[in-house]
């Protein structure tokens, strides 16, 4: 099955239905392994056991930006290539991205209180991630506000591409401004600075959460395709009743 074939929603539905149980099983196994490794990880010499919050905070923070990246590619697919599944992918990703961003904010806050002495600080990293969360909510509201999915898709695609400016701002905020938040310690020039005892559980959890996103996204896309199919049928029904 080629990529062109997947542009056909019926073929996509068949593929998603076949792949989803395997993806869900792989996600569950990796999450279990990640949680086990996280539980076994030693305490940090400065942070003590609160370092365990990192194993859930960082994957959620990474995914909050990654999902917007996926939505930005989908937005290009809507505006440039007019791919039939592009806006389905974008719409389905938004609530999942919002959930990951919410979790990144709250777990960061719960990690910040014992380590920084405060739940919240209006610094560049925290504020830019809060803006990302609000943009997710704005996009979801836009999708709900416009009845016609193709009109909503174009407006949402433009908003998504404009909002993509925030992603490098989030990433480099810790270098461009003085913030309470620490600098990059995994994805950086020169390689990770983190000890393997923390790095391995973190990477396993990051892969597990990424798989979780793929699984949920495919399932949410399947729902969205069905929703559009129902909308078409209801319009057919209404036009028949009107004749």
């Amino acid at each position: 099955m080629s990529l062109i074939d997947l542009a056909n929603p019926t073929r996509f539905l068949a593929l998603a239905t076949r792949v989803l149980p395997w993806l869900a099983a792989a996600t569950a196994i990796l999450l279990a392994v990640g949680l086990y490794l996280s539980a076994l990880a030693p305490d940090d010499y400065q942070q003590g056991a609160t370092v365990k919050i990192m194993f859930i905070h960082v994957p959620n923070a990474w995914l909050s930006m990654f999902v917007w990246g996926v939505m930005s590619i989908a937005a290009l697919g809507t505006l440039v290539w007019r791919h039939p599944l592009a806006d389905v992918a974008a719409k389905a990703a938004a609530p999942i991205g919002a959930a990951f961003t919410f979790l990144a904010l709250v777990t960061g806050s719960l990690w910040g209180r014992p380590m920084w002495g405060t739940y919240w600080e209006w610094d560049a990293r925290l504020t830019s991630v809060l803006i990302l969360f609000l943009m997710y909510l704005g996009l979801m509201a836009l999708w709900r506000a416009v009845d016609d999915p193709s009109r909503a898709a174009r407006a949402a695609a433009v908003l998504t591409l404009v909002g993509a400016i925030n992603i490098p701002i989030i990433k480099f905020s810790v270098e461009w401004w003085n913030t309470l938040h620490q600098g990059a310690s995994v994805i950086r020039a020169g390689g990770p600075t983190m000890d393997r005892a923390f790095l391995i559980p973190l990477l396993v959890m990051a892969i597990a959460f990424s798989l979780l996103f793929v699984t949920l996204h495919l399932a949410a896309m399947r729902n969205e395709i069905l929703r559009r199919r129902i909308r078409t049928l209801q319009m057919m029904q209404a036009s028949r009743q009107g004749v």
Partner: protein
Amino acid sequence: MSLGPYTSFIVTSYALVAAVVAALIVWIALDYRRQKQILRDLEASGITRRSAQTSGSSS
């Protein structure tokens, strides 16, 4: 496994992530069931897509 003086922060973080992920899974699963049910009802009332009429597929 002792989590030291900040146990409540750690446990709350993990519990919150578990709750939100579970809520996402349940929401998507229930939405799927609802959409399938509406589609079945529509098709049972004789409203089908043209492609379904020609191929006999109901997906």
